[in-house]
């Protein structure tokens, strides 16, 4: 709290309703907070703005392009139309690949969430060296170059006849989604008081009931954000998907890659814009849900 040498005019007007012993300090506290204790300097704001533009600009470019014509990529687009969107929603290739991506993403996220949450909870109770080694092992997919994972997956899946199948995509994408869930749930657990588990047991709840009535509600936000990360990771994964593709089964990133490299089809701009908008909306909704549970 900052101390102000004199009462501000606003503070002088208000105290009539408050008990005299309390009013000055209470008013001062709210004033200090409203004003900001350490104002952010202008140059820092400028840096933030530059970084934000650098990060967002490439993504934003694609949105005006998606309203262009069907003949070629152009920026800025010459005449605005919804042709590309019409293409996207009428072409069976695009729609099938979108459906494939959603199905693979949801299933992969489901598996990654279950495995990652179980691992995080288990590692939370385990201490010392074994826990550190296990954690490092589970994080490997995050640091391994995608192409290495892709080739390894491709060779083993050839043997197991999983190339070009939903199961193959789901398994591979679940594996690369696990670290995201692990990280999100682990950070949610770091604020989790484990005496709550003992309290729950003493009150007659079995470990499974304790998980569903205490642990789940308290780390649910972490699990949900891990699940979303896992879904998005699968949804935009392209390297493994290129190796596993099959004429009969392609995910949307592969279709987008094809549309640029072989056909030069600007429909891809509409597809990209849709992905950007949907992912952004999902993340904003998550943020909103998160802040709402916190203020309760």
């Amino acid at each position, binding site marked *: 709290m900052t101390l102000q040498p004199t009462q501000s005019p606003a503070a002088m007007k208000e105290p009539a309703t408050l008990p005299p012993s309390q009013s000055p300090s209470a008013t001062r506290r709210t004033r200090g907070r409203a004003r900001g204790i350490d104002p952010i300097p202008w140059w820092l704001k400028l840096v933030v703005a530059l970084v934000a533009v650098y990060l967002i600009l490439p993504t934003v470019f694609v949105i005006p392009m998606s309203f262009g014509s069907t003949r070629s990529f152009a920026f800025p687009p010459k005449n605005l139309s919804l042709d590309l969107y019409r293409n996207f929603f009428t072409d069976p290739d695009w729609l099938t690949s979108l459906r494939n991506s959603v199905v693979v993403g949801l299933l992969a996220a489901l598996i990654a969430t279950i495995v990652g949450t179980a691992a995080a909870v288990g590692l939370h109770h385990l201490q010392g060296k074994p826990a550190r080694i296990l954690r490092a092992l589970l994080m490997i997919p995050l640091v391994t170059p995608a192409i290495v994972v892709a080739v390894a997956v491709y060779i083993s899946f050839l043997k197991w006849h999983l190339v070009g199948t939903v199961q193959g995509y789901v398994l591979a994408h679940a594996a690369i989604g696990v670290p995201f869930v692990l990280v999100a749930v682990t950070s949610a657990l770091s604020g989790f*008081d484990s*005496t*709550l588990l*003992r*309290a*729950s*047991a*003493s*009150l*007659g*709840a*079995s*470990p499974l*009931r*304790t998980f569903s*009535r*205490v642990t789940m*509600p*308290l780390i649910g936000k972490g699990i949900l954000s891990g699940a979303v990360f896992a879904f998005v990771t699968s949804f935009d994964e392209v390297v493994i998907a290129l190796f596993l593709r099959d004429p009969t089964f392609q995910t949307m990133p592969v279709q987008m890659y094809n549309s640029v490299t072989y056909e030069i089809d600007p429909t891809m701009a509409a597809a990209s814009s849709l992905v950007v908008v949907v992912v952004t909306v999902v993340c904003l909704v998550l943020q909103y849900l998160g802040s709402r549970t916190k203020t*309760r």
Partner: protein
Amino acid sequence: MPTTHATTPTPEAAAEAVNNRSGTRIRLTDVSKDFGLPEPAVDTISLTIEPGEFMTLLGPSGSGKTTTLNLIAGFETLTTGSIMFDGGDVSALPPHKRNLGMLFQNYALFPHLTVAQNVAYPLRERRLPKARITEKVGQVLELVQLTGRDKHYPSQLSGGQQQRVALARAIVFDPNALLLDEPLGALDRNLRGTLQQEIQRIHRELGSTFVFVTHDQEEAMNLSDRIALFNKGRLEQVGTPEALYATPETLFTARFLGDSNVFDIADAKGVTSGSAVAWEGRTLAVEAGTVSPRVTAGEPAALVVRPEDMRIATTPDEVPSGANHVSATVRQLDYLGSYRTAVLSLGGGGTVGRARLAPQEGGLRVGQAVTAWWHVDRQRVVAL
């Protein structure tokens, strides 16, 4: 503050108290817990906690009292021994099947549930009908004086209120016993006093078995029917607060409960024969009744005197005949509000002692040579 053990109950009241006692008997037989460290955390402890008794497990940190509580609760598995509730062996039961209420130092309330939902938690686990749950929650919140707070979340309550909610939650399902793991440790001094009285009142009203863990000897003396004093994983002494204070068996007990003047005795031979011991060349008389049964001849022992039994005479003639006495020097005078104490060097100088001063022992000054004396029946010879 009134205490259960300090009041002398009428026979009628005592009979009623016995009849009311509906708690569970907890019997620990040769219980050990070894975490693989050089010393076992709990080393072959046998202890019976009577139905309706307020038993305190007291000891310094690392003495095994909390591990013992966790063994009773089922949070730790026994290395050896057994635990019985009213004759039923619970040694292999997981915690959620032992039907024990528990209070924790950090309250351990579920932050995502309201006060009412927290208290209803054990009742919902037991599948009570909804109307019955509402009724019991209302009753127990009244018992802990938190009526009207049922819609609040734990974070909206003070520490004292949170511990009351935890207390309500731990007793609402009529558990076999209530285990309290330093529940007042996180509260400030005034609040601790209030909650001590609250816990005592609820113990009286429920008549169930309470097992209380603390390292605070005052708290233990205030609340307990009996105290089990722990030292290095073993039971040092079990008894009523009065018994532990007035007739300690070991130097550890004498030092842990209250202050003591300690005279080291190299060989207890003279003590066990019931005559006298030598201390720094002086002879101190010993009465057989004041010797702890754990003292053995040939072993070192200690003679202890409580500060309130230590008297100060300015001249040797003032010492009554038959009393033990040693020369002393006043080192310091402490004013402690309702009374004063003198810090003394006893005998040749190495031993530091303490005497609580009576109002008439006023005119002492620091550096004065005096004689410290006490009645032979007010001392106690204890094992090391």
